[in-house]
């Protein structure tokens, strides 16, 4: 199998799309272009920084307002709600004010105060939302995985037999299953650790390239809603799941509360691997079998 691979800077990272070239290389090239166009469209719909995105419209809406959103945004928000409920709020898309405070998102001087809490978003029929109170939403913890899933579905729909999409560590393969996936070493990010890939999707959350100093410690853009603070950039979490959106969202839950995440992972048919920065050595294990690696 010859993989045709392309990469573009999208979703705030490098997105790689690869397909089995098959007999018609031009069709494969075209399919990749279509996948990139879809990812760009989803970014425009759900980007925090895009002024006309559904997310920006939600974030500007007043308490009590009813906001119609696109079908794709609706799908992501519905999934987000189920992850929030399953984790008792460890996963939460209304954490944008905390991300702003930590400097991971820009804050507008005239932005009204907004409360953190996923119950502030009520999903109504007809792809509409009601804001129970003023909220600011950031889909950064889930939309990348969703975009990967959608791109894979598109590639399959246009007849691509095999390939993968990798959005900066949010990965899904189809049509074939490589034996292993490389995860970065938490202390030496250009070195990698090879892990078996026994589910089609994987996502990693770790600090390596996104961490920043905050309140005397090094943090990464994952917020612990219980403490209203970003998490220390000390560990690397990889979640393997059946789809990439699930893997993406679950990395946040495992990162915030590894000890509590076992039942949630099991419920979504996922597995996790955590690498912790110890005293000069990297430690790792999975939630179900510490001998797996």
């Amino acid at each position, binding site marked *: 199998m010859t993989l045709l691979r392309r990469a573009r800077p999208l979703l705030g*990272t490098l997105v790689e799309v690869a397909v089995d070239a098959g007999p018609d290389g031009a069709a494969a090239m075209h399919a990749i272009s279509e996948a990139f166009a879809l990812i760009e469209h989803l970014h425009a719909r759900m980007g925090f920084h895009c002024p006309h995105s559904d997310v920006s419209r939600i974030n500007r809406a007043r308490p009590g307002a009813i906001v119609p959103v696109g079908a794709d945004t609706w799908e992501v928000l519905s999934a987000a709600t189920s992850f929030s409920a399953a984790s008792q709020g460890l996963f939460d898309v209304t954490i944008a004010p905390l991300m702003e405070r930590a400097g991971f998102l820009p804050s507008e001087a005239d932005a009204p105060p907004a409360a953190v809490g996923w119950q502030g978003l009520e999903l109504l029929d007809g792809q509409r939302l009601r804001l129970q109170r003023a909220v600011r939403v950031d889909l950064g913890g889930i939309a990348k995985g969703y975009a990967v899933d959608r791109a894979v579905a598109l590639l399959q729909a246009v007849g691509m037999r095999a390939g*993968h999409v990798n959005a900066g*560590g949010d990965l899904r393969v189809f049509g074939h299953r490589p034996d*292993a996936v490389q*995860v*970065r*070493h938490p202390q030496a990010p250009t070195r990698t650790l090879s892990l078996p890939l026994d589910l089609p999707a994987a996502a990693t959350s770790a600090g390596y390239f996104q961490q920043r100093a905050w309140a005397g410690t090094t943090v990464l853009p994952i917020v612990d809603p219980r403490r209203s603070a970003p998490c220390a950039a000390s560990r690397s979490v990889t979640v393997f799941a059946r789809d990439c959106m699930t893997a993406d969202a679950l990395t946040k839950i495992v990162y915030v509360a590894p000890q509590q995440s076992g039942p949630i992972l099991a419920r979504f048919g996922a597995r996790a691997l955590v690498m912790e920065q110890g005293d000069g050595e*990297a430690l790792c294990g999975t939630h179900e079998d510490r001998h797996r*690696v």
Partner: protein
Amino acid sequence: MIEDLRWWNVPAIVVPAALCAPAYAMQYLTVEQAQQLLFPQAERFVAAPVQLDREQVARVEGYSGVRLRVQSQPAWRVQLGEATVGWFFVDEVYGKHEFITYAVGIDTAGRVTGVEILDYRETHGGEVRNAAWRAQFIGAGVGDELALGGAIGNISGATLSCKHITEGVRRLLAIHAEAVAARSVE
């Protein structure tokens, strides 16, 4: 409890250094392939590297807020018959660990028509700034000894910032405005 997180309470496994593969490299597209993708309607690409004088460098740095390392920029004029329909630039950016070559299409109105990554290289550290280290990659292809083994060299967790590329595109737009758009008005 369905899952017992035993691993968390016992000494976890130390990652052996031997499990760590070395750096990663990937060639995505040739210059010609990127030209076809960014300007499928084009008939010809005429090499027309941009050479900036010192004053132009200062102005480009002023517009873009990005420092220029070199005064010349590989560029191609995109032709459809007698008409110039855009410009195609090849550029490189590097950070502490990564070295990226990419192509940008800019139309006659000065808008970006697309960005494609040509080459992506990763290293452990200082080598990337070293010209000799960089030279070894010239002509390197898919499947060379730098690529990771296995069917597919996926790196999960490669959340490298595309900040450098964003800055690079801003710099190219400024170069286009300063040297190319101005030139075609003459």
